[in-house]
């Protein structure tokens, strides 16, 4: 079981990542993270075999919380941004910058977003998480893929 200090540090991890965010995206990230943590607790209560296996492999609740935070930030904020940074065949967003209200989608935008995504993937990797875990939908999906990964290890 996690200590109070572990819990505090895990909460801090999420707060640090979401601190620069605007209110609505931050709320969306926290809402998703809460739902994933609730599912984790529910599965623990049901003696989920994947979860039991992962606990034995050293996966603490704090570590799950950090992974969920990474997943939520990607899903709610960085994923949509990454979508806009891809190159377009007819030069939209490059030769012809896209003016979307007060926003501009141009080469500088694409470059900046790609650098951010690159750094985020590097952070994910430094924490020992796999890149494809960024895009999993639910706590249950993640548990399954982590279980599969740990079993293969």
């Amino acid at each position, binding site marked *: 079981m996690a200590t109070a200090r572990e819990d505090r540090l895990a909460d801090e991890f999420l707060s640090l990542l979401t601190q620069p965010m605007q209110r609505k995206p931050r709320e969306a990230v926290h809402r998703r993270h809460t739902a994933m943590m609730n599912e984790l607790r529910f599965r623990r209560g049901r003696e989920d075999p994947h979860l039991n296996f992962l606990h034995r492999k050293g996966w603490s609740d704090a570590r799950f919380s950090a992974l969920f935070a990474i997943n939520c930030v990607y899903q709610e904020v960085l994923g949509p941004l990454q979508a806009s940074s891809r190159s377009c065949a007819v030069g939209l967003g490059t030769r012809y910058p896209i003016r979307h209200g007060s926003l501009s989608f141009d080469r500088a935008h694409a470059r900046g977003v790609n650098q951010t995504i690159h750094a985020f993937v590097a952070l994910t990797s430094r924490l020992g998480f796999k890149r494809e875990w960024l895009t999993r*939908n639910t706590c249950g999906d993640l548990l399954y893929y982590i279980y599969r990964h740990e079993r293969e290890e």
Partner: protein
Amino acid sequence: MSTASTHKAMAWLVQANKLAEDFAKKHRHYLSQTERQLSAAFEVGSLHALLRYYESHDYVLQPANLTDDGEYRYLTSPNGNPANFSFVRADGPDGDFEIRQQVRIESHVDKRICFTPDIVVIVKGADIKSSTDRRYASGKRPFFRVSSSHVVAAHECKSMNPFPELMVSFLGMLVVAHEWYPNGKTVKVTKKSGHLAPTLFVGGTPRGLHLRMITALQESYAMNIVCGLHEGTWELSQVQNRLRWQAHHVVDELK
């Protein structure tokens, strides 16, 4: 848990927090985008994917109605006059078309049914009607719309995880936005080259049950659901349902 493993877990968390702090500080600008900016980004990404699809299917694309500075002026709301905004011309083997954003559609089912898909492909030069109505903006702003008879395909972009109700609700758009659906002569549904059939672009990754449902929906209806766009599923060459516009054939037959 032993003391040694607790220490190890604590050290990992401290290190994780340091990394998160550094990342958030350095990439503050992109983390602080508004909800509207994020939604716009996903829509722009979906448009990119669609245009790449068209280009790989023998359509010649050309951005049109650019600003004097050469910018593509994206229509962000149905309140704007489409004539004042940019669009992409798509000239292909089955005719000439316009790919536009946020153009309101007036349904053939009933003229009172009007709504705005994120991206719409219409025949070139389709009449964009404008009128005032006291029930809309107290009659102070024109109500712009295009008839669903000119619509080849209406596409919707959702930057969220897929779920069954989202997928099923897209059928509503298929029915009311396309006069050709289900048995119109202006469109031939094909598995070969042609327009992308009405498509729901979804950011999140599907689960096994979702994939099964998507397959069933695509086999049953002239529509596509493309998921996992956040992850990078931007290659649309695998989409199942495509369309050939054949309005000119119908006209020839009538002659």
